[in-house]
Structures are given as structure tokens and as C-alpha cells.
């Protein structure tokens, strides 16, 4: 056909997208679809650069953090970030967290969750596209694959070629590098749990704990398996987030969008087409070729799309060559997209099977242009205003409230702890002079990285005397109004303590009172409620 064609005819000529399921009785449906290997093409552009920077930053943080040193004096480790499982401490720069303060970590996890909601409702799956470890490592592995085997076409050719020395050499080199990165990834993880330089030396001399080697082995396996081999299948089949995104996104979330209103009807044979009958999309498939998830963004938002925005870069490159404005594929909200679709003459329809909800037969590229060939001023644009809406404000408020709460808790938290448990058997002991003795199991925690001296006394029991055999050593029982106890740096001291009241005082004493733990060097103190047991009259 050499005649110019109408847009509708061109649209009708395009092969209909199908579900891939052959028609017929159910037993003919294959339940298993083999993976189609993806050969993502190299791309340059703003988002690609951004991803390189973020990859460098996140990998840098991951690999280097354990090696940061932080001086905490002679009583605590000097690693800036350390999860000390043996001593049950977590060190994060100036902050030291004890097991009972684990709620800080829980709070930060809640913040991370809410933060994920916030980012997703504003910018779609930005987490998936830029910072998710799976994405970062797959990106790293892909770039290495490209370096060893060449770009998309070379890789397709290589895979189709019969086995040869050159092919096998390339594959072996590629997988060797993959494995080395995987080992380094697993290796970096264990350094968070022990003194990094010491552990590194132990690992290389074969003296590290089996748990270290086991962890490295497991993480090497997962990195290599998930990152180097399974790649996009992890996102598509294993990760729950693509399913959750449907609940997180709304009409005002930024998503990577193919702007049908500008691109359709797409067509390659532009010279044959009547001017004004074809949209900007030249159907060059650049956006498909660069996609690491193996999808066609022109089919609309899909579960597989991690919004890495590489298709935007690819399409912008093509648009530049064609001397057309950028942004045929762009970050846009569903709201502005819908408005522009209506403007272009598309009709929203119910059926979502193969048309992502639009009847495109009436679309006319001229409608998005003004008289001079520029953009129609009626076009809707995505603006910053769409970021601020009730949903995002609530997320921000929750995020901020938890953050402030944690900061407040951190600023006012105690660095000493007193825990007193009354002896259960016997509840009390009557002494020969008629006085009553109670026993308590006492735990005093010094949560600072230097030894401290504390005093303990009973507040609210007139005439009460204390005696702790362990503290006074072999001496004769030394009863006193208050006990002095020295607790080593960053440790909990456990000892048994007796409290004595003479008979008359015991009968008149209140049942409940407080033990007071007082730091000898400051006015930091802590109360612990306790009970005084005596014979029932």
C-alpha cells in the first residue's frame, strides 16, 4: 500500500495484544511459562546517571560502614556500627542500645515501613527502581555482563551461538566475577557483627567462627542466586511489594508513564503516513530493549515495572534524535495522564483485558498540538501540588511523630537500670530477735562505657537496713542504711540483697516501698517498686 493511511487504519493493523493463553479446553493451558531471558540494552541519560550515583552510594555504604572507626574509650569497641550479638549490644556511632531498648530498632523499622508508604504514594515504586538491594545488585551484575559479553545484540548472538572456546571463556569469566561479588557481599555482612579488621584477618587465616563462614556462604548463595541468576523474577514472582503497590498508588502518584495521548497512533512508516495522522511514537522498541524487567511500558502500568525510568532515558534519546520534545515516556500522575488522554480523544472503557482501559480508535495526535505545532496549552502537567494531599500528609505526620518520639526517648533515656525481684521462697524470715528479713535478687545495670559507683537504699521503710553478702565479701554481716555498689563499664551486676526491719517496725511498715538507685557521681537515679513481706498478724 502506498497510499497515506488514516490513524484508525494504522491502529487496526497493529497486532492485537493477547494474553498468551491459547484458546481451548483447560487441559491445553500450560501451567508453566518458561522464563524468557532478558537482554537489557545499555542506555544513557539522566535517570541512568542517577542510578549509577545511587548504586555507588548504597554499595559504598554497605561495604564500607563496618570499617568506620569510632572512639568509645577503653571499655567499648571502637567500631562505628556494630551489632555485638555475643554481648547483646548494638552500637551506632554515639548511640549504644541494650536489648531492652530494642524498641528503638523496632521504631526505626516502623519508620522505614511508613517511609516506604510515603515514597510510594508520592513517587511510585522509587524504592524498587533505585535503592532496593535486589535492583542495585542486579544493575551491578547486568553492567558486568555487558562488560564481559557486550551489549544486547552481542549477548543475544552469543547465547544463540554454539558452544565454543570463546563463548565458554566469556561465560566462565562472567560467572567468576559474579561469584566474587557475591562472596564480597556475604563477606561484608559479617563485618557488622564483629570487629571488622580482626574478623577479616581471622577469615583469611581460617580462624573465624563457623557462623561467619556459614553466613558468608549463605549470603554468597542468595546474592548469586537472586541477583545474578534469577534477577527480575525475584521482583515479579517472589517480592510482595508489587502486589502491595496497588494499594499504595493512587491517581496522584508519580509513575513511569507512556503518554499514549502523544505517541499514538504509533507507526514506523512515517513517510507514507499523512501528516498529523501518526503520534510521536515511532515504535522503535528502544523502551522495550532497555527494560531490565522485560516489559513494554507502552502497555501501561504493570506489576513487573520497578519504575527504574531507564525507558524514559531511552525514549528521550530517540526524541532528541527526531527533534521532538522529550517526555513521550515520563514520570506522570494517573490524573494528568487521564486528562490528556481525554484531550487527545481517547475514550475510557470498562474492558481492561487488552486495552488498559482506553478505546484508542478516536485518538488524534493533532488534538494535543496547538495551531503552530507546539503543545496544546490545555495539556495537564504534573506539578508539585499533587505531592501534598491528605494521604501523603498523614504518612508524613506519622513518620514525623514516630521520629520525634524516638528522638525524645533517645534524649531522655536512662543510662542506669535497677531491677529487683523479691525472693519467692521463703517470702520472709523471722530472726531470733523477732525482726523480719526479706530477700531480693537485684540487678544493677551500668549502661555507660565507664565503671560507675551507685548507692541503693530503701525509700519509705523507716529503719530498714540492707546487707548484700556478695558486696561485703567475707566480713561479718554489715547491715547499713544504704549499700554502695561498683558496677563495671557497660555491664549488669546481679547479687542477692537482704533487707531487715525490727519486729515492731515490720508490723507497722507499709507493704510497698521503693528501692532507689542513685549514681554516686551525679543526680541520675531510678526508682524500683518493691514489696515488704511479713507474717500475717
Amino acid at each position, binding site marked *: 500500500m502506498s497510499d497515506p493511511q488514516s490513524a484508525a487504519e494504522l491502529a487496526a493493523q497493529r497486532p492485537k495484544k493477547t494474553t498468551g493463553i491459547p484458546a481451548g479446553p483447560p*487441559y491445553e493451558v500450560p501451567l508453566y511459562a518458561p522464563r524468557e531471558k532478558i537482554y537489557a540494552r545499555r542506555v544513557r541519560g539522566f535517570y541512568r546517571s542517577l542510578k549509577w550515583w545511587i548504586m555507588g552510594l548504597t554499595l559504598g555504604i554497605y561495604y564500607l560502614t563496618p570499617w568506620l572507626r569510632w572512639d568509645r574509650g577503653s571499655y567499648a569497641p571502637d567500631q562505628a556500627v556494630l551489632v555485638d550479638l555475643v554481648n547483646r549490644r548494638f552500637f551506632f556511632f554515639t548511640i549504644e542500645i541494650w536489648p531492652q531498648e530494642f524498641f528503638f530498632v523496632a521504631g526505626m523499622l516502623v519508620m522505614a515501613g511508613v517511609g516506604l508508604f510515603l515514597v510510594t504514594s508520592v513517587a511510585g515504586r522509587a524504592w524498587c527502581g533505585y535503592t532496593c538491594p535486589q535492583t542495585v545488585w542486579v544493575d551491578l551484575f547486568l553492567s558486568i555482563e555487558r562488560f564481559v559479553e557486550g551489549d544486547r545484540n552481542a549477548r543475544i548472538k552469543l547465547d544463540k551461538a554454539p558452544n565454543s572456546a570463546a563463548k565458554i571463556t566469556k561465560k566462565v569469566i562472567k560467572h567468576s566475577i559474579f561469584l566474587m561479588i557475591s562472596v564480597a557481599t556475604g563477606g561484608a555482612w559479617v563485618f557488622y557483627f564483629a570487629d571488622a579488621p580482626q574478623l577479616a584477618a581471622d577469615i583469611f587465616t581460617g580462624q573465624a567462627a563457623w557462623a561467619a563462614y556459614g553466613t558468608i556462604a549463605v549470603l554468597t548463595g542468595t546474592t548469586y542466586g537472586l541477583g545474578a541468576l534469577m534477577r527480575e523474577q525475584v521482583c515479579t514472582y517472589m517480592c510482595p511489594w508489587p502486589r502491595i503497590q496497588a494499594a499504595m498508588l493512587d491517581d496522584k502518584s508519580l509513575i513511569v508513564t507512556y503518554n499514549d495521548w502523544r505517541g499514538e497512533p504509533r507507526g514506523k512508516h512515517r513517510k507514507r503516513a499523512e501528516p498529523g495522522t501518526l503520534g510521536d511514537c515511532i515504535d522503535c522498541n528502544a523502551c522495550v530493549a532497555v527494560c531490565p524487567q522485560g516489559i513494554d511500558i507502552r502497555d501501561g502500568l504493570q506489576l513487573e515495572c520497578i519504575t527504574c525510568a531507564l525507558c524514559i532515558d531511552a525514549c528521550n534519546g530517540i526524541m532528541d534524535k527526531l527533534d521532538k520534545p522529550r517526555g513521550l515516556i515520563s514520570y506522570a500522575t494517573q490524573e494528568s495522564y487521564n486528562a490528556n488522554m481525554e484531550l487527545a480523544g481517547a475514550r475510557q472503557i470498562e474492558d481492561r483485558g487488552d486495552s488498559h482501559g482506553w478505546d484508542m480508535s478516536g485518538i488524534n495526535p493533532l488534538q494535543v498540538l496547538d495551531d503552530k505545532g507546539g503543545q496544546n496549552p490545555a495539556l495537564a502537567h504534573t506539578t508539585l501540588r499533587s505531592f501534598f494531599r491528605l494521604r501523603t500528609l498523614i504518612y508524613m505526620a506519622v513518620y514525623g511523630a514516630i521520629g520525634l518520639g524516638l528522638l525524645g526517648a533517645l534524649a531522655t533515656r536512662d543510662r542506669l537500670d535497677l531491677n529487683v525481684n523479691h525472693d*519467692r*521462697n*521463703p517470702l520472709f524470715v*523471722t*530472726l*531470733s530477735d523477732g525482726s523480719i528479713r526479706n*530477700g531480693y535478687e537485684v540487678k544493677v545495670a551500668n549502661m555507660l562505657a565507664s565503671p560507675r559507683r551507685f548507692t541503693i537504699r530503701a525509700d519509705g521503710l523507716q529503719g530498714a537496713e540492707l546487707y548484700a*553478702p556478695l558486696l561485703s565479701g*567475707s566480713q561479718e554481716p554489715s547491715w547499713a542504711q544504704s549499700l554502695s555498689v561498683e558496677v563495671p563499664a557497660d555491664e549488669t551486676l546481679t547479687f542477692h540483697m537482704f533487707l531487715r526491719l525490727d519486729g515492731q517496725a515490720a508490723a507497722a511498715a507499709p507493704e510497698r516501698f521503693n528501692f532507689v538507685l542513685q549514681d554516686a557521681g551525679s543526680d541520675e537515679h531510678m526508682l524500683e517498686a518493691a514489696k515488704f513481706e511479713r507474717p500475717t498478724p
Partner: protein
Amino acid sequence: MSEKSHIDQVSGVETTGHEWDGIRELNNPLPRWWLWIFYATIVYSIGYMIWFPAIPLLNGNTPGLSGETNRGKLQAELAAVAQEREAITAQISASSLEEIRDNPELQRFAAASGSSLFKVNCSQCHGSGAQGGPGYPNLNDDDWIWGGSLEAIHQTIAHGVRFEEDDDTRFGEMPAFGRDELLERDEMTQTAEFVLKLSGQSHDPAAAEAGQVLFEENCAACHGEAGGGDVEAGAPALNDTLWLYGGAKDQILAQLNQPKHGVMPAWQQRLGEVAVKELAIYVHSLGGGQ
């Protein structure tokens, strides 16, 4: 049935050739991998039966090449624990009670070990918290019949009280003033009134005054003139608030009439020297040790 194999049209799978009312059975053999694992388990089971005790016989079972038994494993584990503790146990064995008490590491080990020994061997009478009961002394308080020093406690545990099989046992008996008619009935009442007075309880002053003479004649030799008791003779203090067999008047009378004499076994022979030391350290640490 034809000789040629029949292929099911729907699934494309060969059938077994069996047919019931037109229904055929598909011939889907077990997967190879499953079958090989099954064979492997059979081979493994043969090796297992040779290596481990496996086949029951009339009298016991085949021992297997490894000769492994649960009892043997337990013995090995116990031996390993004993070996682990050997150093510190030897130290306890070689140290005096005072040395153990003054060494925090030994003290803690001995007290912990003594605590568990106490739960097994002593708690039946003295209670799990060593709080005692009527007839069984409370070991937490500071009232000791045979003495509350480390040495005295150790001696009592090692050789028992009124335990006739041990020559070094603690021995002390109070005469049965009533049963053996050493005192008249009203004399006993008067003595009891005086004991009430000694321990600061309400009493009949006139009877107590009469009782004082009787007490000095009959009781003070062991219990002391002021009723302070004598740990050498095992005579309890009568001037305090703590009583082994009760401090009410009828309980005092009952003891005067026909005294109860509790018996405690000697433990040195049964548990060994180290265990008795550990028990002494533990009991001494309960708060009443002197």
C-alpha cells in the same frame, strides 16, 4: 484389549490397559528422582542396621558395629561435665571452707552447686527454700541448734544428727520429764510458764516464779540459766521467738512430757566431701550464717 498400547487422548499419556466401565487408568510411573531416593533409603537402612543397635533379640538386641547406646551417651556426657568441672572441684576439695567463702569464684560455684544439691537431697525435709517446717529447722534464720558457723554447718551435714550409723554424729537428747515421771504434772506446767516468760510471751507470773527453780534444777544445765541454749549439746535457745516444735504452752508441755528428737542422715558418705562442702557454703549463704 489390543496388543498395542493405548494412549489417552486428552492427556496424551499411556494407559495401563485396565478398563472399568470405560474408565481407563493412566500409566504415570513414579518420578525417577523419587524412586532413586527410595532406593537410597533402602541402602541406607541396611548400613544403619549394621552400624547401630537395631534388631531386637529375645535377650536384648544386636549391638551394631558402633556399639552406641543411649546409656553410654549419657555416661559420656556426665563424664564430660565432670571433666569440665574437674579443675574447680579439685580447688574446692583442696580449700578450707573459709578459703572457699573468701574466693568469689569458688564461692559462687559452690553456692550454685550446693543449691542444686540441696534441692535434690535436702528439700524433702527442709523445704525448697530451706524454710523448714514444724520439726525441721529453718536454715534461713540466725537461730542454730548445732551452730551456724561454716564449720558447724559442715559438721552437721557431714555426720548428721542422731544418726546412729555415723560415729561422729551430733547427739543430744532431752529427758522425757513427763513420761519418765521426773517432774510432777503441776511442776511441768510451772516450768512451761517460766519458758513462756523466758521467750517474752504472756505467762502466769506466780507459776513462772516457781518454774524458775525447777528450770534451774532440771533444764539450765543444757539450755542455760537465761535459756540461751547450747550449740555443743544441741540444746535450742528458749529465749527467742523461733521454735522447732512450736512455742505455745501446750507445745512446750508436749516437748517436756515426751520430747521429739528429729534425725538427720549423715551426708559425707553418700555425697562425698566436695558436695558436703558445697552444701555448707550454700546453707551458710542463706542469710543466717555466722
